[in-house]
């Protein structure tokens, strides 16, 4: 079954809920290697997103994603704002005109998001950022797709890839973002942005399962 507009809407709403529930957790992760606001930032951003989307009953997939992007840019207040903002904006552009998303469309969506984050933050994988969850998630999705997995399985593979990637950030030294101010001392801590990325993918998996 392809992903519908309703699934995307459910995903974004669910993301808001999940990030709200994980506000303290993400903020605590950020307190170890940053400025203790990542949970606050993401919660604030997605609350604004969902308030905005509530008034947009007729929006299609692309519009939902773009609106999420611009709203995150305007409301998050931290580095994750322009980063996730660009990710969702590019995802919106990549899905223009689509009423549903097949596996290939979903991978295209996330590849566009990945390119957006890379372009915005000038980071590569291995620098202990959200990229280290997103990039392996997409790799896993592609492998699952090559192995003829269903769309639901592909998304499950993304979640698993993001989980592995997020946990791998623990051993990384941060070279981008505030955590880079800690240098070697950033080792031993899980990156908050990678963690929120993993949570967002988990929310997508749950929305698709639900559907």
């Amino acid at each position, binding site marked *: 079954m392809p992903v519908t507009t309703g699934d995307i809407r459910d995903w974004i709403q669910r993301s808001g809920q999940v990030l709200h529930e994980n506000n303290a957790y993400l903020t605590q992760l950020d307190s170890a290697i940053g400025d203790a606001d990542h949970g606050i*930032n993401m919660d604030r951003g997605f609350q604004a997103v969902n308030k905005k989307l509530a008034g947009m009953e007729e929006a299609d997939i692309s519009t939902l994603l773009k609106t999420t992007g611009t709203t995150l840019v305007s409301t998050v207040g931290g580095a994750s*704002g322009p980063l996730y903002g660009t990710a969702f904006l590019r995802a919106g552009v990549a899905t223009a005109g689509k009423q549903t998303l097949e596996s290939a469309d979903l991978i295209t969506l996330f590849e566009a998001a990945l390119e957006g984050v890379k372009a*915005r933050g000038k980071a590569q994988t291995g620098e202990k950022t959200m990229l280290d969850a997103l990039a392996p998630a997409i790799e896993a999705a592609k492998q699952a797709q090559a192995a003829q997995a269903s769309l639901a399985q592909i998304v499950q593979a993304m979640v698993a890839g993001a989980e592995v990637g997020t946990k791998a950030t623990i051993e990384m030294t941060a070279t981008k973002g505030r955590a880079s101010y800690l240098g070697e001392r950033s080792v031993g801590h899980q990156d908050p942005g990678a963690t929120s990325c993993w949570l967002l993918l988990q929310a997508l998996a749950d929305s698709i399962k639900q559907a």
Partner: protein
Amino acid sequence: MAVGIVIVSHSARLAEGVAELAGQMSMGEVTIAVAGGTDDGSIGTSIDKVAAALQKASSPDGTLVLLDLGSAVMITEMALEMLDAQEKERVIISTAPLVEGAVLAAVEASAGSTLQEVAEAANNGHDMPKGHQA
């Protein structure tokens, strides 16, 4: 008209303080616009504040943007992307230290220097003497 200056900071007080300090050296001859804190007044950056400050400090001679931390660069770039190409070309994002760069940029801008000269003056802030030289 002088080159305009924009101060982007995660803290509203910090941005205003820098503008106050730099403004003392430019005697009101230079527009120093601030974008400090988030829209709801907490610590962070706001694209709307940055865009408004860019507008306020906009000058035919150009605008120099100074930032407190690297993480403010991205939101500043997104604010710049909202400008038309011609306006965008007249803006430089400085990598200079915020306070020192802003003071030196304000001095330079008040002398009617070009954007390039103001940007270079700000860069002298990297090694502004703070021993006994000044």
